[in-house]
């Protein structure tokens, strides 16, 4: 490591060469205010909030984009600088609605935090404000250009990390707006509903479509039987919305809080994850034995589903026909569970609490209906349910953990790890290995496919047959992997794709980053992942096929995996969709 000498606020320091000023200062315990910067995205230098003073330079320097150099004399906090930063943020605020106290991100807004930190207690400027209609067309993501401060994080996220390229700046100057092609409604664009624009947006320019009021109304409807399921990753992250440090698994607390919210039955999506594995592992083995295309690609991630249909219609046959765990659970609620309880399915209101915005899109896919009914009537995100819990006066911080309900609430450890990249694959292999070889896989933690590398590869030998697997998380990494598959279709047998960075734990519906964190901070993601791995380790049953309630479900209702009842209720299909998405061969990414 080559070091250079710099001076910061009249003190001498040694720092690593080749960094930006911001990176060097970060390492020295300074945290220059910033807005458009994000460590996972390319550097835009658009907001100018991160300016510093460098001796000998005529103007202030944007520390995010300027390299640190030998002998630099940097000032970070002079009176002039403070004034300039304050003016910059004030000018941003000037073209921003003054409706903080009625805004969805009140109290959890980066711009608000920044304005406070800059000491803006008085507004000096008053000028023209832009005004555009909100785009409410998508069932998952709302776009509100009025709140946009043009930091461009969403554009870069969508282009560089997800490679979906649904968003760009359009028009120019004061009229610049972030929008999809042709300013078409979001629902008609290539947007996959992944919600990563929401995660990185510093304001409320992108938010999920909020269904909390509707849900409160339904919870008060005595004629309905209210049933809820919770995705694995929700329990790994919801604590953050209540001030717990990242990584606390709050399984029992979730169950208890949902009961207090008014749900009659509190079930676990992890049960449905076990069910998914029963189908998916069997489907994989059929394909290995020549019935169907390889590599088989997983189908749990709803953003990936839409991405597949728009960007990879040529790979549709490779994708597992299994519905996602959420939709499998919904299907079982309105058939098996309704029968068992003697309920009419129309009276069951099926709610899913998901870490995901794209699940809102999935819930209204007509292909998933069973006997004419939507499996899932309403989806709320981790953020929405956290707000509902707070809003209802439930003491989540001190609540005593409770169990999920039977018969759709007990899960194996394999179900828990569904929420983290590599988890679906690991869970599937635990079961497929045993089904194929007749022997139990003893070393069940598959280290090769854990972690946050962009594309992970592994292999396992079943009865002398080598099975090669690959895992990608985030649609951009998926693009990289699928590019390989298109060129070399025989390279892998089994592929897992999750639409979000880190898998569902980094989903578009997870709690916003706190004041000491950044959106999609890898340390936070690691802790959320560890929470799920911890749940797995602490289960006595860690293989999906050993889940007694899943076995009972097959015995009483479904027959056998891939049988006719299973096909009717648990499987779906895909079709190419317009507009066709474009993944440029050359795209900016770090």
């Amino acid at each position, binding site marked *: 490591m080559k070091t250079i000498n710099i001076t910061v606020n009249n003190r001498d320091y040694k720092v690593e060469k080749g960094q930006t000023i911001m990176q060097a200062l970060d390492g020295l315990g300074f945290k220059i205010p910033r807005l458009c910067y994000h460590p996972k995205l390319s550097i835009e230098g658009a907001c100018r909030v991160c300016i510093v003073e460098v001796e000998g330079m005529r103007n202030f320097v944007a520390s995010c984009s300027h390299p640190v150099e030998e002998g630099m004399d940097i000032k970070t906090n002079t009176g002039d600088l403070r004034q300039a930063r304050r003016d910059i943020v004030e000018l941003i605020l000037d073209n921003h609605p003054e409706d903080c106290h009625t805004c969805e991100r009140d109290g959890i807004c980066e711009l608000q935090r920044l304005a406070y930190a800059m000491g803006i207690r008085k507004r000096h400027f008053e000028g023209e404000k832009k005004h555009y209609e909100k785009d409410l067309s998508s069932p998952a993501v709302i776009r509100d250009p009025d709140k946009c401060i043009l930091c461009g994080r969403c554009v870069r996220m969508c282009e560089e990390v997800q490679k979906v390229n649904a968003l*760009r700046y*359009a028009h120019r100057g004061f009229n610049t707006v972030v*929008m999809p*092609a042709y300013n078409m409604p979001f629902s008609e664009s290539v947007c996959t509903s992944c919600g990563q624009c929401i995660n990185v947006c510093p304001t409320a320019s992108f938010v999920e479509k909020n269904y909390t009021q509707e849900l409160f109304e339904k919870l008060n409807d005595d004629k309905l039987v209210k049933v809820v399921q919770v995705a694995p990753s929700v329990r790994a992250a919801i604590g953050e919305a209540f001030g717990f440090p990242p990584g606390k698994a709050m399984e029992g607390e979730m169950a208890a809080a949902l009961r207090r919210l008014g749900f009659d039955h509190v079930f676990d999506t992890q049960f449905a994850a076990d069910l998914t594995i029963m189908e998916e592992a069997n489907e994989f083995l059929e394909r290995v034995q020549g019935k169907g295309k390889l590599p088989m690609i997983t189908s749990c991630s709803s953003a990936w589903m839409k991405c597949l249909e728009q960007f990879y219609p040529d790979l549709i046959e490779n994708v597992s026909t299994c519905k996602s765990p959420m939709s499998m659970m919904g299907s079982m609620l309105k058939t098996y569970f309704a029968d068992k309880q003697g309920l009419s399915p129309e009276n069951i209101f099926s709610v899913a609490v998901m870490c995901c915005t794209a699940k809102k899109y999935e819930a209204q896919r007509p292909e998933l209906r069973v006997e004419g009914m939507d499996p899932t009537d309403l989806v709320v995100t981790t953020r929405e349910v956290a707000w509902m819990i707070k809003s209802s006066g439930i003491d989540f911080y001190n609540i005593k953990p409770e169990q999920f309900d039977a018969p759709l609430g007990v899960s194996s450890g394999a179900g828990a790890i569904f929420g983290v990249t590599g988890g679906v694959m690991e869970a599937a292999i635990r079961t497929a290995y045993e089904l194929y070889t007749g022997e139990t896989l003893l070393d069940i933690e598959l280290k090769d496919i854990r972690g946050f590398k962009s594309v992970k590869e592994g292999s396992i030998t079943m009865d002398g047959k080598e099975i090669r697997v690959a895992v990608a998380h985030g649609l951009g990494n998926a693009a990289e992997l699928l590019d390989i598959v298109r060129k070399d279709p025989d390279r892998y047998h089994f592929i897992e794709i999750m639409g979000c960075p880190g898998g569902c734990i980094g989903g578009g519906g997870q709690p916003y980053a706190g004041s000491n964190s950044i959106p999609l901070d890898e340390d936070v993601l690691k802790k959320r992942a560890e929470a799920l791995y911890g749940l797995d380790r602490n289960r006595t049953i860690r293989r999906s096929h050993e889940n007694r309630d899943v076995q009972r479900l097959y015995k009483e209702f479904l027959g056998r995996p891939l049988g006719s009842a299973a096909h009717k209720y648990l499987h779906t299909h895909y079709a190419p969709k*317009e507009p066709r998405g474009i993944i440029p061969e*050359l795209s900016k990414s770090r």
Partner: protein
Amino acid sequence: MTKVKDERSERLRQYMDECREKEHSESQLIAILHKAQEIYGYLPREVMDEIAHYMNIPTAHIWGVATFYHYFNLEPVGKYIVSVCMGTACYVKGAGKVLETLKKELGVEVGQTTEDKMFTLQEARCLGACGLAPVIMVNEKIHGDLDAERTAELIKEYRNRGG
């Protein structure tokens, strides 16, 4: 996407083929949009879709570029494109009055096209003919030294030439 196999789309294809041969073919976008506008008179959505797929450039990006530059028309334009120079020299010499007259005579605002599809009114920044200020450009032809009266006459002349 509608696939119209006509002479115009063939010409655009040919041009894009040439561009694809070049290094950094994705940087040829502006040139391609120019060509498309030359061929179609404006940038129809289907044409931008076609460019996106053929050149492997995201549609949202093409839309971003097309909306950034005033030169590109996103709506069909009239037979005569009237560009009023609002550069400094013309502005000082009364471009404002010329523009007002044009708006009144044509009955459209800047950026709009007359109902008979004869005229599209645009603003421009310095056409490089400051010696003749104030000037307007009708398609490729510069008309200088204008005032309200002469502007109205000029429009009458073009109108008489017909469509």
